[in-house]
């Protein structure tokens, strides 16, 4: 507690805390016909304040995202209330998010409107999403209140939405090229580009690539006992290097005035070391992990009538994983290969019945397969059908959204026992009531309930020696009640003040918890049975316009989560906080815009956690505070926008671990240069 207190003081002194929750992206976007058309069709949702959403939502967009210290999507998610990122340290370390202690498998990640899936482990590694081409990162508790959604994006405890930058052009522009070069401590080299073309009034495209390479040999302090006053030494992280390349091509077509067609070809490749535990091994880890992921995704949206909209999405993709450990003491070493294939199709119809009532029906079907090079592996195929019926009713002062989700799954295996077929119907409802709405003040109350479950993954069911085909789905119930306050005033120094507070109770039964007690890649199952989570998420933000071009944004979030094991009253872990879940955590942010110059600071804080289920000193992980600072300058030379940004990460050189024995990097530096070139239409063009 004392440590936490000190950290708090440190922060106040540095006044550097950043959480960019939901300050509306001060959008100075160019108004053009294409964009407004997109807005009409693609999303019924306008740029919505987080205080106005029915279910709690937090997002960071645009400039706040690009002009931040975030390198990967996980860096952004760390700033959200209720989100707990499990981070193995460094750029190459795996990062997964558990929202409101439901576990990483209860968060679906949507990438440009289509769910990213991993049938094998069920958890998406957020380190693979680089920020350089992202426009929005949004976390929705329960689900998004967007009606024109696929069923799969509604079939989780929470939704993480990643939206890439869509091309926008003024009438005179025909191409834009954004170049980025980033370098930093521990051998970081990160070039990226984004090329956007306007081929005609109906067709635009974007091509982007992001290459990241880091040696990752950061220093860290090792304490040789649990009592940190004992002997310690400084070591360097080894086998922590990573090379990754993400590249994608998007083609956007507007086939008629009320239809839009988005296509995406995506490729991701990475090769990384999996470092060993931090000390005491006489030999270094030789474990490597290689990933190759590619998919083609297509989404067609059309307004069939003024009140009826249709969206069809499809995706086909493959994911290859190779895990090697030549030092493993069998006769050949380990060379495990996993091949996942997916075919996915989704259709949604949304009908506005009354001005205040809309109904949507979404039907998704998918086939996922997993093959390995292991002998006698189950070789499972999973057919999954998800159907969601959702209605949104918005009478005066009220917003009500509710629905039912029907899930049916069927596994077939080539070897051994397959999991039973599951069919389940789960309900959800969200209600918001506007208590007060004046020119400047807006007060709302909101509540939601959602019953959802997650199917056991292929690893849960069929992993050699670990999998158990008799596993039941993991059931989660979420109850949430909260209040929001919005203050806006376009004349006042205080332009905007937002505050949200949501209390929740979650209940997980038949919980399957994966803890990597073997290594990073192979997870072992621990069945906690029952977990109860009582929590409170608070977010706040303040936007000040001090003088003409001088503005200040302050953000903060606080999370309190008591997530306790309620499995066995006689067990040693009954009423103990579940592993890797701090009771208290928070994030703060500050951003100062001085004309062309911007300064930012951010911090994330976490209370103590336990590495294992038993809350004893031996399993304790200490509280930590990480503070990042940044400064950037933007200028325009000859129609070319340039931006130079410098960052100091973990400025206090805090030595901490999120996952036991996987130290996080200490103080680090990064420099980034962005150049935005535009190409104008020739005047001879029609």
């Amino acid at each position: 507690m004392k440590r936490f207190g000190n950290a708090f003081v440190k922060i106040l002194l540095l006044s550097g805390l950043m959480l960019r929750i939901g300050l509306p992206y001060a959008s100075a976007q160019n108004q053009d016909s294409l964009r407004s058309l997109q807005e009409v069709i693609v999303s019924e949702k306008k740029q919505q304040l987080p205080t106005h959403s029915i279910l709690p939502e937090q997002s960071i967009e645009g400039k706040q995202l690009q002009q931040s210290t975030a390198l990967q999507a996980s860096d952004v998610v760390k700033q959200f209330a209720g989100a707990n990122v499990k981070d193995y340290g460094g750029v190459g370390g795996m990062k997964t998010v558990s929202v409101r202690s439901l576990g990483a498998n209860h968060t679906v990640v949507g990438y440009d409107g289509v769910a990213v899936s991993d049938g094998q482990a069920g958890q998406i590694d957020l380190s693979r999403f680089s920020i350089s081409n992202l426009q929005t990162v949004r976390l929705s508790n329960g689900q998004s209140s967007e009606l024109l959604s696929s069923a799969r994006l509604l079939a989780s405890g929470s939704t993480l939405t990643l939206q890439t930058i869509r091309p926008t052009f003024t009438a005179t522009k025909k191409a834009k090229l954004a170049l980025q070069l980033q370098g930093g401590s521990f051998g970081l080299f990160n070039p990226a580009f984004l090329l956007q073309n306007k081929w005609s009034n109906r067709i635009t495209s974007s091509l982007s690539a992001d290459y990241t390479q880091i040696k990752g040999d950061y220093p860290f302090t090792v304490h040789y006992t649990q009592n940190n006053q004992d002997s310690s030494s400084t070591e360097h992280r080894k086998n922590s290097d990573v090379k990754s390349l993400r590249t994608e091509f998007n083609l956007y077509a507007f086939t008629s005035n009320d239809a839009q067609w988005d296509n995406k070809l995506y490729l991701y490749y990475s090769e990384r070391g999996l470092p060993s535990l931090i000390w005491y091994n006489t030999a270094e880890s030789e474990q490597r992990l290689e990933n190759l992921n590619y998919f083609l995704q297509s989404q067609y949206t059309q307004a069939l009538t003024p009140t009826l909209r249709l969206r069809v999405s499809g995706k086909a993709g493959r994911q290859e994983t190779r895990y090697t450990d030549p030092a493993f003491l069998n006769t050949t070493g380990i060379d495990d290969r996993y091949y996942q294939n997916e075919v996915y199709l989704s259709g949604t119809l949304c009908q506005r019945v009354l001005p205040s009532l809309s109904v949507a029906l979404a039907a998704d079907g998918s086939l996922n397969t997993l093959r390995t090079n292991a002998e006698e592996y189950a070789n499972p195929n999973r057919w999954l059908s998800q159907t969601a019926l959702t209605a949104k009713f918005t009478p005066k002062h009220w917003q009500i959204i509710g629905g039912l989700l029907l899930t049916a799954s069927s596994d077939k295996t080539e070897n051994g026992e397959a999991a039973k077929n599951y069919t389940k119907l789960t309900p959800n409802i969200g209600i918001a009531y506007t208590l007060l709405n004046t020119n400047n003040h807006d007060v709302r109350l909101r509540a939601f309930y959602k019953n959802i479950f997650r199917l056991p993954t292929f690893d849960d069911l069929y992993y050699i020696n670990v999998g158990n085909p008799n596993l039941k789905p993991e059931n989660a119930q979420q109850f949430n009640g909260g209040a929001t306050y919005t203050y806006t005033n376009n004349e006042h120094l205080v332009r905007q003040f937002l505050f949200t507070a949501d209390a929740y109770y979650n209940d997980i039964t038949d919980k399957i918890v994966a803890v990597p007690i073997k290594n990073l890649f192979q997870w072992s199952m621990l069945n906690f049975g029952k977990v109860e989570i009582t929590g409170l998420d608070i977010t706040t933000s303040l936007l000040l316009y001090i003088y003409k071009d001088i503005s200040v944004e302050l953000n903060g979030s606080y999370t309190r989560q008591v997530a306790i094991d309620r499995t066995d009253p006689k067990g040693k872990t009954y009423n103990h906080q579940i592993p890797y879940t701090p009771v208290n955590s928070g994030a703060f942010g500050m951003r100062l815009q001085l004309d062309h110059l911007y300064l930012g600071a951010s911090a994330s804080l976490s209370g103590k956690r336990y590495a294992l289920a038993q809350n004893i000193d031996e399993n304790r992980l200490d509280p930590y505070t990480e503070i990042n600072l940044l400064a950037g300058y933007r200028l325009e030379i000859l129609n070319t926008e340039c931006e130079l940004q410098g960052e100091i990460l973990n400025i206090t050189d805090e030595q901490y671990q999120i996952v036991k024995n996987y130290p996080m990097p200490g103080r680090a530096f990064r420099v980034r240069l962005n150049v935005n070139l535009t190409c104008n239409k020739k005047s001879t063009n029609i």
Partner: protein
Amino acid sequence: MQQKIYQYIGIILLMLLLSGCEKEPAKVADNTQPDTSQIVISPDSVIVKGLYILNEGLFNMNNSSISYYDFTTGEYIADYFSQQNGRGLGDTGNDLQQYGSKLYCIVNVSSTIEVMTPDLKSIKRIAVVNDEGKARQPRKVAFEGGKAYITCFDGYVIRLDTASLEIDGICQVGLNPEGICIVGKRAYVCNSGGLNNPTYDNSVSVINLQSFTEEKKIEVVINPCVIVADNDRYVYVISRGNYGKIGYKLQRINTTTNEVEYAYDEEMLNLAIVGDYGIGYTYNYSNQKWKIKNFDPQTKQFSTSDFVGTTSGIQTPYALCIDTIGKRVFVADALNFTTNGTLYGFDWDGNRVFSLEAGLNPNTVFLITERIKKKE
């Protein structure tokens, strides 16, 4: 932190005080204190003063520990090794044995041998690596003629001189050797092949300790792990099968012929023999059922009735230790493998006389004995 230390000192003082007053160690959950009452301190006899528990911790959690319990004072120190050395033991301590005046702890994943004084002060931490610097991953140790013989997962037995504490010999055996025992001038080594699952090894290597070469491989059921010898120079090998269709199998090797001469019907996962006393248990991972039975090294047969039943409190037997001085058996319980385990003590009639919270996954119980001098 300092406050905590004072707290500990306070607790220890309190415990000392309590044990002085009531003759009952505060940490003993059963409120029974059989130890001093049952040990008849005859002049010039040896008593069991206390015990060490090697807690392997969890793989890759780097949290092995050695706990200390003193029967005479009731004092308990959860991680005595750290307290004595200002650092932890490492990852997955797998064996703890004494030879001469030194203790040897084999730390598997860290790939070290920790040589210690009887009160756990480290004398030398020996890195067990091959010529390329790769971890050999030592598993078990046995001693003979001033040498320690240590099985290593990379397929070798290494020889450590217990005076110089230098590795002075190496002998290739089968795949992933586990248990080792010594009869006369020969070592018997279980070649488990555990890391080559599902292609397990199925042999016991016979090593001539004079030439330090493998003389023979005796074929046994796949995945042999545990090996113990009795006073009649018979060697008992437990094969763990493939945890599936092939079950556990206890086999007896005649060391004059070096052949398997008998395979027991009684299913066993672990066996301990000291002098005329023997005890073994089986544990089924899929249904969590276990059974503990006495083994008579003279008739070489198991008792018909169980040593203890479910009322003993045991959940997951993980280690056995026979105390012939106090006529007790200690059974370490790993519970669910992720929380601190329990150590139970039973008299030879199966009555529970002792229980204590151990560390995470207690896999070895080591008795600390003390010689009481006859008063003239």
